């Protein structure tokens, strides 16, 4: 009798707890959707923090962190692309930033690790490397359109690490860990072909449709017509011959440098949080200031 009474009390307590969870709407897993930008605010990617921040245009300062996801974000190398890969507790999400509305929209969700490779601006298709959960050295190359539809480009392609979409096609780098070097691959039809070129670093870029490779200290075209010194973050705005570089300045704060095609510094901005592009116009978001620079005209507006 005593046992039955005790068991009944335990059963009742459990029922109350379970009901309480449902009523409160408690989720066993969390998904941080992120804060959107409000009036006079923009969603800005801060590359040294790997985060989307909410930047106040009138106050010229960060007003909040968007807090989308639970870890660092990943960006495409094209500065005009507003697609990002977000780390979540359950997996990884691809999000797009609607600049006009200041909102973050979900595009696709993966339980595996997914990282950006290259972006096709005209078709709005992103190319990504998807790593297997059991072994993240087993990777596929996938394409995702704006609706989130996934297409496998190459399965079990090896240790793919980066990519660039050029007039010739999609280039990829594949890491050879035995030799500590990268092989340059190109996608032809449904196959990935080894170009025979060995690289000592895997950063790839597209400059007006032309592939740029990199080594430890520089970024260069294969035909030798272009070379520039490497920096922490390097961007090549389409339709211009200028280069945007970010690195840490002497005051341990990020700085943005704009160079012409001969490497001459045209403009330098200190204490920069990030920037965004509108066509060939660069909007520089600094701590306490904002500047607009026309990369097409080569001067500040």
């Amino acid at each position: 009798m005593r046992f039955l009474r005790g068991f009944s009390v335990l059963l009742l307590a459990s029922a109350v707890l379970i009901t309480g969870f449902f009523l409160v709407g408690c989720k066993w897993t969390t998904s941080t959707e992120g804060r959107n930008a409000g009036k006079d605010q923009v969603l800005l990617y801060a590359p040294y923090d790997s985060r989307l921040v909410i930047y106040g245009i009138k106050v010229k300062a960060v007003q909040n962190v968007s807090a989308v996801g639970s870890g660092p974000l990943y960006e495409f190398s094209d500065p005009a692309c507003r697609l990002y890969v977000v780390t979540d507790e359950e997996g990884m999400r691809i999000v797009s930033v609607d600049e006009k509305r200041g909102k973050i929209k979900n595009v696709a969700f993966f339980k595996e690790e997914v990282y950006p490779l290259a972006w096709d601006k005209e078709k709005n298709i992103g190319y990504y490397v998807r790593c297997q959960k059991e072994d993240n050295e087993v990777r596929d190359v996938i394409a995702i359109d704006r609706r989130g539809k996934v297409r496998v480009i190459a399965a079990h392609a090896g240790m793919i690490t980066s990519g660039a979409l050029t007039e010739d096609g999609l280039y990829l780098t594949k890491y050879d860990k035995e030799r500590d070097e990268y092989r340059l691959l190109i996608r032809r039809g449904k196959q990935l072909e080894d170009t025979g070129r060995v690289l000592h670093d895997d950063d790839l870029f597209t400059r007006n449709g032309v592939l740029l490779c990199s080594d430890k200290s520089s970024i260069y075209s294969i035909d030798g017509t272009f070379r520039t010194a490497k920096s922490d973050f390097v961007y090549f705005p389409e339709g211009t011959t200028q280069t945007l570089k970010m690195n840490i300045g002497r005051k341990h704060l990020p700085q943005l440098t704009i160079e012409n095609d001969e490497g001459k510094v045209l403009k330098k901005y200190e204490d920069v949080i990030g920037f965004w592009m509108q066509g060939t116009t660069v909007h520089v978001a600094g701590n306490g200031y904002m500047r607009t620079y026309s990369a097409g005209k080569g001067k500040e507006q």
Partner: protein
Amino acid sequence: MGKRILPRKMGICLVLTIAFSLGSVSVVQAGIRSDSSKLYCPKGRLIAHVWRGGGKNSGNTKKWDYQVSSKYKGRAKIKWIQTRWYSAASLRKSASISLGVSNSSASASSSSSWMTVKTKTKYWKNNNGSKSADWRSNTLVGPRKDYRSNTIYTSNTGTLKLKGYPKKYEISAGI
């Protein structure tokens, strides 16, 4: 033989409790703090560390030495490693806090209410294959009468990218 005042076990516990409390008090008085966090990643681990010395009064200011570091211990090759840090404290009446590095300071409003004020975040990045990124300086608040005691804290986030792996490994430590 006289009667025991306390049972033996209770007496031992009491002695140990007093000894531990005295030890804890001495650490608090010295004010030295450190914290480390580690994150396992391919072939090793990323460790974020922050150390801050005891506060010293200097005229109208109070300052603490600090050191922040991010280190990779392991066999994989590094693409880059970064450390980013800031300090914060509860201040009032336009008091300010800085990191000992130029262009880092921040100030409270002119209000007499306490508010948390955070310095600018500072960065250091190594992309030359080095397995660590670190910085040492001091944090300063002033005037110290407008600094609320025991509210100083320093946060350090280490981020690491390894060759062959697209993932950014990130871990934070704070005191």
